């Protein structure tokens, strides 16, 4: 119980710091919108064939803006050795991981909540599938790569070139989740009649989420050790 309470304290601290500094979230948002705009230049939004790109585009926007936030997640703790302040407090290391994860997760969900409707709007996409399914898919997929992403960002923050290192670590490891989630989104958006197939993909991503979230919790102690 205290693990969760401390995690929420840490997540709250992160979100509060973000509210005060207004550095990461606006950057992520602007970046997400820019990616959408660039895409509308690259692929003609009026063409019917471009509609097929929307499912992939949702995740490209999400992942690339998520990387920006994940990068700052642990780097921001290095300035005054803040992370050491958390380590020497009577707090389980799992709380630190969970706290960081919650904060990142919330920020990325906010970005998605704004960027995805905007994407539909700018590409004039009429969504007539099942909204709960879409939300569930987005939630499951984001959970997976933000979880492992928060963990790998802690590894990368030890490097001098962490901004460059993190995508290299994250993309290969997150591949199964990405494959699954893009496929599921594709089915929900393009073939609403085959929804049971999307369910299969969601199970795969759900399994991935559970396995890797568990591993992250078990191994996080070794990353924090000084």
């Amino acid at each position, binding site marked *: 119980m205290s693990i969760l309470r401390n995690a929420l304290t840490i997540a709250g601290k992160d979100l509060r710091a973000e509210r005060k500094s207004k550095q990461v979230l606006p950057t992520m948002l602007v970046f997400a919108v820019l990616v959408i705009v660039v895409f509308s230049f690259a692929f003609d939004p009026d063409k019917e064939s471009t509609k097929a790109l929307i499912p992939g585009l949702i995740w490209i926007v999400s992942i690339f803006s998520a990387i920006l936030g994940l990068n700052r997640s642990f780097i921001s703790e290095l300035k005054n050795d803040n992370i050491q302040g958390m380590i020497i407090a009577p707090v389980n290391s799992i709380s630190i991981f969970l706290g960081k994860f919650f904060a990142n997760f919330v920020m990325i969900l906010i970005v998605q909540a704004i960027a995805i409707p905007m994407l539909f709007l700018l590409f004039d996409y009429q969504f007539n599938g099942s909204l709960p399914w879409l939300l569930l898919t987005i939630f499951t997929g984001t959970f997976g790569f933000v979880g492992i992403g928060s963990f*790998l960002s802690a*590894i990368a923050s030890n490097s001098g070139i962490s901004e460059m290192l993190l995508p*290299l670590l994250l993309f290969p*490891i997150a591949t*199964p989740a990405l494959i699954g989630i893009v496929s599921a989104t594709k089915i929900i958006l393009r073939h609403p009649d085959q929804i049971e197939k999307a369910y299969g993909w969601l199970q795969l991503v759900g399994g991935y989420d559970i*396995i*890797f979230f568990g*591993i992250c919790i078990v191994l996080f102690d*070794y990353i924090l*050790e000084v």
Partner: protein
Amino acid sequence: MSFFKNEEELGLNLNTRTTLVNHIVYGIAFAMILVSAYLIFIYSNIEKTMGAVQKIFYVHVGTAWNALLAFGVVFVCSILYLATKKRIYDVYATVAAEIGVVFIIIVMLTGPIWARSAWNVWWSWEPKLTSALILFFIYIAYTMIRFMDGSWDKKARLCAVFGIIGFIDVPIVYFASEWWGSKFHPTVVGQEGGGLEGNMVFALVFTVFAFSFFLTALIHKGVRIEKARIELQHMKDKIAEKIGR
């Protein structure tokens, strides 16, 4: 010599010279590679539909299997390192990862040649190729962590953590890409191992073993070099300390 007190403390047994055992290990490895060459080119039957090109398959599977084996060694040594914090496991993981990358590079190069001759395309998003590519990227990332600044024990810890995560990811990647490939690329791919004849199986098994032996010899040699480098670092540290006094 006062410089060499730290060897036992490290748990490393240092000898940098080539010994008889090394010659024997290498000799057997080379001999097995030669025999496997004979098996591949002369002994084994030529496959009916694909012709001689099918024989790429032996080296391809041989290296792919051993790349996996090497990464398996990384995985096991990573767990052992985190559990015991003995440097020797980190040395093994370092060496095995490097050799694994070499093997996977071979796989990535021979794969397209096989694809070109079998399916007339250089690349296909076929599950085995896809997961080999991801595997390649995972261990490139692993090497990037190795090249980080900092003391060896910090790097060893981070690498061990990533080595564990990366290896667990492999079967999931394979499963995901197989499912993905089967749904979106229906029948580009023929079953390559469909009807292997007896002597083909023998050639394949022998080649895999030959490469495994080769892998063992390489790891052995790599570890000896790594140990020598650690000894060198120790000497330098001690000398620096003496000068510092």
